[in-house]
């Protein structure tokens, strides 16, 4: 499987004949073009038009993050996979209110299911069982309301409700004075835990975007997150399924194993963010996680987390084509 390249240093990305290299302070590092699917840029990196042309030709997506680790945007090469039939079907499912609501509901169902999976794991390991039981009980109640929702907005509100309860268990799970949850804050996050959640989620969004690029789906047409034909939204829908089991679990393990501590965060005037060192640790552990494999019952083989995202997109495409009703991925452990 193709690899992801993360660049933290400052330098220049250039094309040389039929290959790419990253140049920093007189040192050149060649990039295996055929084997790279996307590049994440965290450092101050100059790129040339020749580089972008070549990246486009080789179908490499470039994701940019600013000095503070905020997602800036992606260089999404011109579409290379195109099937009019699929795009029409995708648009049809967006325009038909009932179809759109149905798909949006699936994403929320998947999201709640995965959050529940995380909680069940900790319920079995920690003493405060009643904390988890209460929240899981609420999850069940909220899930029953999903089928009554008449609009995507109502679904979003339900999801927000569930997520709030989900986050309320984080202090019980983490039990570390340096990482208290308080409440969810973004742009900028107000504490370390929020900084981790924001950073992790933004990377998972881009991973979903990278995988969408390899399918026939149009990233501009989301179902839960509205389309406005200017920016991508389908990846946000798909990420709902993966955020809990990928990002949240990773955060818990990084904190519990003390791989990330207080010193890995920078305090800004109005918020707190992961430092460069912290981002490096986070990204390298996330990458390890994305490459770990899980047994896939239906395929009869093990697949990486990264591949699970792709499979999820295939399932969505099959739903759009009218082949098979989409059922969100449900982790079994």
């Amino acid at each position, binding site marked *: 499987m193709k690899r992801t390249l993360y660049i933290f240093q400052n330098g220049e990305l250039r094309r040389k004949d039929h290959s790419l290299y990253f140049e920093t302070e007189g040192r050149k590092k060649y990039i295996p073009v055929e084997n790279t699917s996307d590049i994440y840029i965290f450092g101050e990196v100059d790129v040339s038009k020749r580089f972008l042309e070549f990246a486009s030709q080789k179908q490499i997506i470039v994701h940019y993050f600013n000095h503070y680790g905020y997602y800036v945007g992606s260089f999404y090469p011109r579409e290379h*996979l195109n099937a009019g039939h699929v795009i029409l079907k995708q648009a049809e499912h967006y325009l038909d209110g009932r179809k759109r609501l149905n798909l949006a509901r699936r994403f929320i169902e998947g999201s709640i299911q995965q959050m529940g999976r995380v909680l069940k794991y900790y319920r079995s390991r920690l003493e405060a069982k009643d904390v988890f039981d209460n929240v899981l009980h609420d999850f069940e109640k909220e899930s029953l309301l999903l089928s009554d929702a008449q609009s995507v907005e109502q679904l979003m509100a339900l999801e927000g409700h569930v997520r709030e309860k989900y986050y309320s268990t984080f202090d019980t799970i983490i039990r570390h004075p340096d990482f208290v949850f308080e409440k969810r804050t973004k742009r900028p996050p107000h504490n370390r835990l929020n900084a981790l959640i924001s950073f992790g989620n933004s990377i998972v969004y881009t991973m979903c975007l990278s995988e969408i690029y390899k399918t026939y789906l149009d990233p501009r047409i989301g179902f839960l997150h509205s389309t406005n034909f200017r920016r991508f939204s389908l990846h946000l829908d798909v990420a709902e399924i993966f955020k809990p089991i990928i990002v949240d679990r990773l955060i818990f393990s990084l904190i519990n194993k003390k791989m990330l501590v207080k010193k890995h965060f920078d305090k800004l005037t109005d918020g707190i963010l992961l430092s460069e060192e912290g981002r490096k640790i986070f990204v390298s552990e996330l990458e390890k996680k994305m490459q770990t494999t899980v047994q896939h019952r239906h*395929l009869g083989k093990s697949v990486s987390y990264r591949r699970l995202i792709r*499979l999820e997109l*295939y399932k969505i*495409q*099959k739903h759009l084509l*009218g082949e098979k009703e989409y059922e969100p991925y449900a982790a079994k452990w």
Partner: protein
Amino acid sequence: MPVTGTDIWYYYICHREVWLMKHQIAPDQEDESLDLGRFISEIYYRRNKKELSFGNIVIDRVRQEDGQLVVGEVKKSSRYMKSATMQLLYYLDYLRRMGIEARGELLFPEERKKEVVEWTEEARVELERAVKEIQRILRMPVPPKPKKIQFCAKCAYREYCWAEE
């Protein structure tokens, strides 16, 4: 929609594949066996590579032998003989309808093997039926359901077809 030689090939392996291909839904481009196929067609017979494209068919290789046209079709392996044979017969039949009598050769460079294929009346009848069937499949609004067959193991669509749960 005109039926191509590759449609015939897919038809004798998997009806679902015919539908997907015809709807421009190509298989996973990162799949290794696709790379291998591309590599084989680029590397072998470079010296007398004469790809010929006319109407809606593309022929891998043509040459003259004893005043007769010989049409060659290059394949990775001889495992799917029926498909390969029918594809080649489709070309022969196509040419015949244009007034050209040709002989066919299936080429398996990896196995250093060659099979001769000749047009017959039975083949024509069989192909006519297959073309009708392909056109029926293509009119289906939804692709045919996946079926687990031997071909799935190495098919670049396998993850797409079996992505479930």
